Each structure stands twice: as C-alpha cells, then as structure tokens.
C-alpha cells in the first residue's frame, strides 16, 4: 500500500481512532477492575477507574487537538484534495471530540462503578 494512502487514511480517521482507543481502554479497564475486584482502590482519594478514564480522556483529547491543529495548517500541493482533506479532518476531529467528552462523562457522573 502506498505511503500516501496510509497517511491519508490515518490523517482522516486519526481522531476517531483516538476515541476508539480511549473507549476500549476505559471499557476494558472498568470491566477488569470490576471482575477482578480492583475497582474500590483509590489513588489520592480518587477511584482508580474514574482516574484511569480521565487520563485516557486527556490523552485522546490531546491527540485530537493536535490533529485538528495540523489540519488547519499548511498549503497542500493538490489544492482540491488538500482543501477536502483538511476540512474533512476538522469535521471528523470535532465529531471525535464530542464522542471523547461523552465517553468521559460516565466516569465523572456514575456512582457505584461496578453496581
């Protein structure tokens, strides 16, 4: 596969993949913590599941912001394709950011993680 396709595909979907990684991590962490009995542990008074969720959220949001900034910079060689790619990336990034925020909310709002 040519580099340009892999690069283009990753650039177009990178923010969504960041959300996917965030989502899978939080889901798996919570499931394992609940099933194996670690969920009640705390770090500095904060439950490890909400804490892990917030760390993952910040990481995913950081990646998405970086991709959004990259999408709004530079002058692409192929004007038509470049404009399409940069605007699509911005739209994808915005949608991914909403999903990342929504994914973070349960960790902040849900009481009794494993109930």
């Amino acid at each position, binding site marked *: *596969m*040519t580099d*340009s*396709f892999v690069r*283009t595909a990753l650039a*177009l*979907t990178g923010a*969504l*993949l960041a*959300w*996917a990684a965030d*989502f*899978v991590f*939080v*889901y798996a962490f*919570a*499931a*394992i913590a*609940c*099933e*194996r009995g670690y*969920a009640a542990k705390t770090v500095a008074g904060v439950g490890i*599941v909400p804490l892990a969720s917030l760390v993952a959220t910040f990481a995913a949001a950081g990646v998405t912001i970086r991709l959004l900034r990259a999408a709004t910079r530079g002058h692409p060689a*192929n004007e*038509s*394709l470049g*404009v*399409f*790619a940069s*605007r*699509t990336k911005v*739209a*994808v990034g915005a*949608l*991914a950011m*909403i*999903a990342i925020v*929504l*994914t973070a*909310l*349960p*960790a902040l*709002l*849900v*009481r*009794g*993680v*494993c*109930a």
Partner: protein
Amino acid sequence: MSSAEELARAMAAAAAYVEPPLPNPLPRPEGELEALGRVWQTPRGWRIFSAVNNTTIGLFYIGTALLFLVLAGVLALLMRTQLAVPDNDFLGNRAYNQIFTMHGTVMMFLFAVPVVEAVAVFLLPNMLGARDLPFPRLSAYAYWAYAIGGLAFFCTLFFGVAPDGGWFMYPPLTSYTYAPDSGADWWLLGIGFIEISAIAGAIELVVGILRTRAPGMSLAKMPVFAWAMLVVGAMIVFGFPPIILGTLLLEIEREFHWPFFIAEKGGDPVLWQHLFWLFGHPEVYIIFLPAAGMVSMIVPAMARVPLAGYRYIVAALLAVGVLSMGLWAHHMYATGMPHLSTALFSAASMAVTIPTGIQLFSWIATLWRGEVRMASPSWFLLAFLATFVIGGLTGVMLAVVPFDWQAHDTYFVVAHLHYVLIGGMVFPLFAALYYWAPLVGGTPLSERMGKWACALMCTGFHVTFFPMHITGMLGMPRRVYTYSAGLGWDGLNLVSTLGAFVLAAGVLVVLVDIALHLRVAGKVRANVWDSPTLEWLPADDYGFRSIPRVDHRDPLWARPSLADEVDSGQHYLPGTATGGRETIVTSAVEGRPQYVLILTGDSWLPIIAGAGTAAFFLLLTAKLHALAVLGALVALGAIFRWLWATDRGATHAPVDIGDGLALPVYASGPQSHSWWAMVVLMLVDGTVCASLLFSYFYLWTVTPGAWPPAGHALPALSSAAAAASLWLASSAAVSWANHLLGRRASKGALALAVCVGLACAVAALCVQWQGHAQTGLDPTVHAYGAAVYATLAYQALHVVVITIMGAYTLARAFCGLLAADRRVTFDNTRLLWQYTIGQGIAIIAAVHVLPRLAG
C-alpha cells in the same frame, strides 16, 4: 464555499479556460469499438450463468436478494396472521419459533447485507468509471455461494429442521443441552457461506473503490455512495469476524462439547452475546450506510442542485463507521454489566446520533434549496426521512439504560428496529430501484405504480409498526406465539396485522411494475433524471466506450459534453489494448493512472466453486462428512484452477491509453491490486484472531481466582520459548526465499527455503500443542482448556493454509510461472505466511505471558 458555488465556479472556469486536448483524438480506428464489444459480450442462453461481468452478476445478485425479501416477508405475514387474534392456533409454537428465527435470519443475512453489496457490484464500476471491479470472478463466486447456499438454507423450513433459537441464537438455549436437534447447526454452519460471501464482496468493493477509479477522480471527487461503500467494506472487514468466530465456537461446543458458553464449566453465555453484537450492531450500520449513500446520490438529482455539505457527509460516514463499532453492548443492558460499562455504551449511542443527524440535515438542506422533482424516488425518499427519524428517536430512547430495562424484549423494540431497518434501508432501496432502473433497460419504471407502491408501503408500514410501540409499552413480550385475550393487546395486534398486508400489497405493486416494465437492454443511454454522476454515461457490456477523465465531483453537470466525448472514444483506453478485458488501476488517493489491469473473463469456475462452498457447509450440517469434504475439494479445485490462469506477468508491452500515457500491464508488490486484496484479507484474519484473544481474556475475567483455574497447569516457559524461536526461524526462511526469488536463484534453492520455513512452522505448532497436552489439558473439562485449544486450532488452520499456498507457489515455480518479475503469487503467500508468524507469537504471549503476569 457551498457545492453550488463550487459548481458554478467550475462551469465558469470551464467556459473561460482553453482546455487541454482530450486524451484520444477522433476519428477512432476502424473496428476498435467492435473489438471492445466482442471481448466484453455477455454470453447468451444458459451460458449466461458463466458470466462474471458486474452488470450481469449485479442483476442476478439484486434479483436473488429481492427474492429473499419476498420469502422473509411471507414469513412475516404468517407471523402476523398468527398474532392477529388472541389464543390463535394458526401456527403451533414450534413452527412459530422457526418462522420468526428464519424471518430475522433471512432478512439480515440473505437480504439486507447481500442487497447492498449487490447494488454496489452493479453500480460502482460505472459510477467510478471502471470497466469492472478488479476481481470479477470473486464477485461471481460470492454471488453463487450466497444464492445456492441461501436457497438450500431456506428450504430447511420445509423439512422441519429450520433453526428456532432466534436470529441471535443465544446460548444456553442453543447449546447441545437445550437444542439437541440440528436446527442450530443449520444456522451456525449455514451462515458460514454467507460470511464468506460477504467478506469476498467486501474485499472486492474496498479494492475496487480505492484502485479502479477513473483517472482524476481523487478522494475529493469520489461519489458519496462510493464513500459509503468504502466505509461499509471496512466495517464488514472488522465487524464480521466476531460472528465468524462466535459461530465456530458455538458449533465446536455443540459438536465436541468444548464449554465456551457453559457457565458450570467456566464458560459464559454472555461471551456469545458480546461476539454476536460486536457484529450485530455494526451490521445495522452496514445496512444503513449504503442506503444513506444511495440517498446522497438521489437527493441532488431529484432536487437538481449539488449535495449540500459533501465534506461533512464524508466526515459523518467516517464517524458513524468508527463510532458504531463501540455500541455493541447497548443490546446487553439487561445482562448485568457494571454501571459504568452500561453508561459508556449509552454515551457512545448518543455520540453516533450526531453524524447521523448531519447527514439528515444535509439532505434536507439540499431538498430545501433545490426544485424537487416529485417522482417516485422522491416519494420513497420522503417516506424514508420521516420514518427513519422516528426510528432514530426511539433508538435514543432505548439507549437510555433505565428505559431500555423497561422496554427490553418487548414489542417496543420490534417497532424500533423495523422503523430503523425498513425506514432506513428498505425505503431508500426502493427509491434506488426507481431511480436507477433506467440503467438496466433505458426506460424508467411506471411512475403511477411507483407512487401507489410508496403510498401503500408507507401507510402499511406505519399501521403495522406504530401500534407495536404501544403494545410494547403495555408489556407484550417479543417472540411469543400467542397471547391471552383481555391484556389490552388484542385490537393493536389486529391493526398491526392488517397493516402488514397493506405493506405487502405495496411490495407486490413494485414486483408487478418490475415484471411489466423492466427490460434488460444492451446499450443504454438514458440519463432520464439529468443526473450528475458517471453511471449515467452511455454504457454497454464493457461499461463506457472510453474511461473518462474526471475533474469534478458532479462531472456530467460540470461538463455537459462529457457523454458524447466518452461515447465517441475520446477519453482513456477507448478500445481493448491487449485483446482482453481491461480496466485502469489508479492511485488510491489522487486517482493517477498506474497500470492497465487485465481482467479475468467469463468462466464456469466461480459457479462450481460457489456450489462447492455451499455444499461443504450444508453437507457438514447434515453430517454427510465424506460428501462435505468432496464439496470442499471441488471448491478448492475450482479456485486453484482459476488462480492458475492469473498472475500472468507482463504479457504485453506498455500500452498507450491516451494523453501520452503508456502504462504497464502488470504490477507486483504494494502497487498491485492483488497485494491490497491480501492486506484486506489479513485484516479480516487478524480481527478473527483478536476476537479469539478477546474471548480468552473475557473468560479470564469471569473466572474467579487464579488463571489458569485450579486443576490446570501452564506448560514450561521453555516450550513457549522453543515455539517462538521456531516461528521466527520460519519467518527468516520465507524472507530468505524472498531474497532468492529477487536474485533469480534456482528453483531448488527456492524450494529448499520454502520447505524449511514450512517445517519450522509445523514444528512450532507441534511444540506448542505438545506443551499443553503434557500438562493434561483437556478442552472439554473447562472453558480455559477450550479457549487454549481454540487458539492452537486456529493457528493450526493457518499452518495448513500456508502449506497449501507454499505448495501452490512452488508448483508455479517449477512450471515456470514464477519469476523475479512475475511474483504476485509468491508475494501473497509471503504476506499470509508472515502474518501467521505474527499471530503465532501473539498467541504465545497471550497464553503463556498473561497468566504469569496476572497470577
């Protein structure tokens, strides 16, 4: 800038600009068109079943899918008749269970997924400006496996052996204890050929969309339907493997008593639900996104203005494709998942509504600013918009956990899913039938009948399904074959039944319209809607006379002379340059011409291979093992026979396609379309393996205490180290073979490298297997043993496959069909081989390292 402004700017620029000459001059050489027609001519009479051209296979495919729609619809009418009045004895409970199971299964597996692939097979080549998809025989094979196997599967109803566990086949209801007869086996193995067919179709579509677009058609100019099918292809690649694995595991449990889903032996029936819905929820979007893509094509043509927000629709398609993979457990709120998990899936369910809403508002905006032609497709579009919005809103209600707990397994859910599936997919499909029908025979279907059909279908649909919201709220559970009078459900059920017959009458009108007015013609020149996209160019069996140079997203509106230019042969490749069927392979992002692909022609081999595949799965279910093996051998023989004639090398000097471009007729390595197909196949394979490892980890999390559980032991680390070393040695051997082929070394040296590599792979597998066997691990005692042996069996399957591929590659080498510059076969074998090594190492890490880390 809006699309309309862009179009106006493009037209103005076109008027002011002195154009470069078209790729090929006039007059065209004498006999060029006749030769092209001869090469692509569709066989006549009974030989038409050997045709592989996308137009013929596409029509077969669409027709068969519609047949399954009718058959499953008849089953729905039987169910509604049974439920029309309380305490009815029209159908017994056993027949009712079989009928609702087959209704769901046939609708989802034999109608909904195949029909969207079918429409894509028919439309995409012309929409993209290709003469055909890159693997025509693969399309034909996918179709025949589906058609033959699907019809045989449906016939189980007539012999009383149809499955009766629901279309989701939840264990323990479907395990050997509670479903000892063969019904569940028919489902589990019968679905096998459909999975193969869907994945074959997805590979074809993904590679076709990315590599066979017309020169100049960059991703920015690609039709939205192609974008939708690209996303759907990727979703099939990642969405189908969990159900492939799930069906395998459940069938192994039923046949060999490996307890993956049996709680008292360490298994968990909820694991099945995860595997099923990891496929099942993306499946909803696999069905909906193509329909959304069709709508995005039809709306601008009907409104006579460019689509509003093209880029946002593409972004929305990508977002839905990814987000929908994270919704699977919202079907499982009632299983007792942790609160946080249910809330996560609820949040993801909310997130996916936003990109779906973007598409809806784009369509509404397009209709708003255009002058809508109120023809039959528009009627169906409006029915779609209203119905789908209602279905989407009840979906949001069901995504709210407490509401779902109340409505779970009631008729409210039945109402919701039909609003989404019929509203979101069937109405757009009928809009598409009326919109694209002129491409088949040159004339549209009857406007009058189309509008009657839409009115009947829409009315019948809402009369049937709207009351079900209320019946569900009143507590009527799904899947009951009858109910007592006086529960408040009687009148609502009767209304639903009457509505179902009105809906069926609407479908009948469409079928009569098709029978009366649809005629297949050879050459078609019928842009009856003044549509802007390439599929409306004059076309014949060969697609277009010449392959257009594309410089706009709505090429027929931006360049009104395009149809005449293409049809007179002034664009690319106006004849057959090599004397065979060809299309142009272009780069995936920018659509730059790279090489001319010589396509395979008509053949009986795909139908033989398809029949063999279907026979294998169906005869296996009937426990006719010898005949099943024969079916598999027939399928493999036919596939190898057709592969043997491919990978022909550079049989022809570079050919002039026009515009001064001389393209090679062969490519290998990452530029080759075949390499891309192999990569997509490995993504499927890797996802099956990931699903298997997910199952292994899942069983670990639900097993209390240590892992492995008490009474089980891990093999010594030395056996894992030995196996890993042998896998790496195998990898080195195949890399050595690659080096030898590049240096044009002797066939003997190549054979030695391949054989050493295979020997190392077999030895690695034996060491792994032996290590576990020596600990006394028994796959029937506990789910741990079952999971470990399942990983080893999956790896063993790969060793068998690379052994066959290695032998095939060497056979080609010794027949003089493999060389440094004719090496696609070797490259494909090497890719899968190296993947197998990676998978082997991953399995060792999971089985040996995790338990030691987790204690």
